[in-house]
């Protein structure tokens, strides 16, 4: 699913998700870096509110947008039937170029991965379930020429960074490629 941000006016963004669904989201400045109130809904106010399935697809589109276009307001996403809230993580790993990498709240680090091919932060909490425990930022490999990021729970199982639930290797969020060309 392709997601395209089609307008940005001040702190208000209207996003065309590529499926005919509009998601309006408004960054809210708070004590943390930022948070975003997501309101899924049709473009015209007279249309009925979308069902949970529509919002789920919109949320997925937003995830794609956040990662691919580096508009990364936060890491924790809480989904409700008609309101989606994205809350900011408190820590990000900056890159010389490319998107910032959110670190689970309260995670300690950086620590070296023993193989010497990356760094990690562990002991934090993020994601809708709160079970995103750590993040690894790994060096470039043949498959990932700019490196990659992977999130995991406290059982060292790779998780979806937004939900905190375990995912299979086939999931695009298993290893999230770093790509300097997507720098904001």
């Amino acid at each position, binding site marked *: 699913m392709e997601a395209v941000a089609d307008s940005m006016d001040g702190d208000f963004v209207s996003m065309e998700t590529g499926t005919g669904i509009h998601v309006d989201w408004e960054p809210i400045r708070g004590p943390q870096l930022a948070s975003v109130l997501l309101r899924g809904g049709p473009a015209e106010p007279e249309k009925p509110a979308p069902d949970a399935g529509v919002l789920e697809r919109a949320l997925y589109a937003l995830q794609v947008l956040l990662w691919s276009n580096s508009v990364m307001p936060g890491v924790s996403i809480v989904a409700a039937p008609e309101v989606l809230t994205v809350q900011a993580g408190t820590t990000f790993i900056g890159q010389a170029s490319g998107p910032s990498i959110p670190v689970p709240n309260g995670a300690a*680090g950086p620590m070296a991965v023993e193989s010497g091919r990356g760094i*990690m932060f562990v002991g934090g909490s993020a994601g809708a379930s709160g079970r995103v425990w750590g993040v690894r930022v790994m060096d470039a490999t043949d498959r*990932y020429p700019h490196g990659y990021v992977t999130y995991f729970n406290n059982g060292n199982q790779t998780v979806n960074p937004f939900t905190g639930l375990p995912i299979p290797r086939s999931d695009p969020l298993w290893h999230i490629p770093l790509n300097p060309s997507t720098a904001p």
Partner: protein
Amino acid sequence: MTTSAANNALAPIVGRRLTAVVFVMDYVQMQFEAPDTVLTAITLPKVTLSQHQFVEGAFGYRDALCGLIGKSVRNASVVEGVELRIELDNGAVLTVSLNSDDARGGEAATFSAGPGELAVW
């Protein structure tokens, strides 16, 4: 080249029993009685027992893996770029290929020996 004993990441499990085999989505984790030690085999392991080899998809593969629960690790080694090799006290040998051609998820395996202690192959 095999790692030396000093930097053998799998050293913490030597002498310890395999306590659990966890099938997670499409990979496997093995837990040992040493605290917080978990070997995550993204490239699925191969079990060799009594000259029989059990590989992913073969009849009896999961039984062979689970049959190792309770067995103690007699030796564990890392042969960089080749395999992780765990020998158990019943004569079984469990190997995880580190050959990049076999890596299905970009990584072949990870080994955690506690918070902040993680090796990745």
